[in-house]
C-alpha cells in the first residue's frame, strides 16, 4: 500500500473519511487484499478492546481521537508473520546449491569416465594393493601402531623423563 491508500484506510477506521471519498475506499478494498487484511485486523482489535474495556469502550467509541490512537497502535503492533513461503524458498535454494555442488564435484572427479560400478574399487585401489601387506604383517603393524600410541604419552610418568 502507498501512503495515500494508508491515509484513506486510516481515515475510514477513525471515522473521519469524507463521504465523497467512500467510492475510493470501496475500490481499494475490492482490489487490495492487503487493505482488506489491514481493516480486518483493526476491527478485530477494536472488538477485543470492546470486550476487555466494555465499561470505557462505550464512552470512548465515538471519540475520533481514541479511534486514531487505536489505529496507530494497531499499525505499530502488527505481529511479524513467519514467512513460511520464503523459508521454503530458501530451503529449496539450499538443496539446489548442494545438488549443483555435488554435480560439479563429481563431474570434476578424477574418476570421471570410469563406469559407476567400478568407481569405488578404483578410488580405493591403493588400499586393495596394500591389503596383501596388511595381511602378511598384520601383527607387526599392530605392534608398531601400539608403540606409536605408547610413545604419544611418553614423558607423562615420573620415571620417564
Amino acid at each position, binding site marked *: 500500500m502507498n501512503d495515500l491508500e494508508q491515509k484513506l484506510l486510516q481515515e475510514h477506521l477513525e471515522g473521519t473519511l469524507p463521504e465523497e471519498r467512500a467510492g475510493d475506499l470501496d475500490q481499494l478494498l475490492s482490489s487490495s487484499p492487503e487493505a482488506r487484511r489491514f481493516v480486518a485486523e483493526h476491527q478485530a482489535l477494536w472488538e477485543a478492546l470492546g470486550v476487555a474495556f466494555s465499561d470505557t469502550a462505550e464512552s470512548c467509541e465515538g471519540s475520533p481521537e481514541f479511534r486514531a490512537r487505536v489505529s496507530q497502535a494497531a499499525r505499530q503492533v502488527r505481529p511479524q508473520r513467519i514467512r513460511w513461503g520464503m523459508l521454503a524458498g530458501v530451503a529449496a535454494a539450499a538443496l539446489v546449491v548442494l545438488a549443483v555442488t555435488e554435480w560439479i564435484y563429481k563431474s570434476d572427479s578424477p574418476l570421471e569416465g570410469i563406469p559407476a560400478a*567400478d568407481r569405488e574399487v578404483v578410488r580405493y585401489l591403493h*588400499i586393495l594393493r596394500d591389503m596383501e601387506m596388511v595381511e602378511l604383517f598384520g601383527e607387526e603393524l599392530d605392534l*608398531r601402531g601400539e608403540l606409536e600410541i605408547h610413545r604419544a604419552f611418553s614423558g607423562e610418568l615420573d620415571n620417564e623423563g
Partner: protein
Amino acid sequence: MKQLVSLFVLAVLLMAATSALRWPSVPREQQNRNRLQWMALPEYERERLRKEWTDLNAEPRAVQLELMRRLATLDRLRTRRNLNGQGMPATEEIKGILEGVTSRLRLEFGEGLARSEGEMLQQLRISTQRRIDGFLDNLVEAGRLSLEQREAAQESSWDDYVRNALEIQKAEEIFLYSEFADGDDSVELEDLAPLDVLDEMLEIRRLRGFLGRAGAVLGLSAEEQRLLSEASNEEFYGVAKRLMEPKAREYMVAQLGMSKQQVDRVLSQPYRDLERSLHRLLMRQP
C-alpha cells in the same frame, strides 16, 4: 507447512547419512594414480579386485576397523619416512622396518617375558594404559580436566579410551604450540591426525626443548640442540629433562622469585607435566 519443513530436515539428514564415508577419504592425487593404474590392468585382474572389494565390504565392522587401523599405521610409516627425506620405502624396506620393531620390542621385554607378538602387544598395552592414566591424572591435577571427565573416560572401552586420550593430547600440544605459531599453523595442525601432530611436536621440542611459553623463554645452545635432535624417540624425554631442568630452575629463582622448595616441587614433575606447569607460571607473568 510444518510438514514441508520436516521433510526438508529429513532430506538433509538423509543426504548427510548417505554421503558419510565408511572408508577414509582419498586425496585427488591418489585417485589420479589409482585411475592410471586401473586403466593399465588386464580385465581378469580388475575382476579379482572387484571381488576383493566386495568381500572387504562384507566383512564385519570390527574387522574393517582393524584393517583401517593397520592401513593407517602402514600409511604413517611410509609418509614419515618420505617426509624425513628418505623417499617412499619399497615393500622390502617396510618389511625390514616392521621386523626391526618386533625384534627391538622382543629385546626390550626379554625373551622369557614375551615370546609372541600377541604377548608383546598385551604388555605394551598395559604400559600404554599406565601412561594414559598418568597423563589424565596430570591434567586433573592441573585443573585442565574435571574429575567427572576423567572418570567418564575410564569407563569407556579401550579403543574409545585411547582415541579420546589422543584427541586430548593433540589439543594440549596445539594449545602449547600456539605460543610459537600464528593462527594458520595451528589450523593446519587441527586437520592432522593426533599421532601426526604428536610427531610434529616432538620435532619442535628437539629445537626448543619445551613447547609453550617456556620454550620461547629458555633458549638452547647449538650443542644442546644437537643433543636433542640426536636423541632417539625412546630416550628423548630423559635427555631433555637433563638439559632443561637447570635452565628452568635458574629462571624460576631469578625471574619468578620462587623459593627453592617451590622450584623443587615443580621440577619433580614428569617432563610434559613440567612443561605445562612452566607454561602456566610464565603466563601469569606480566
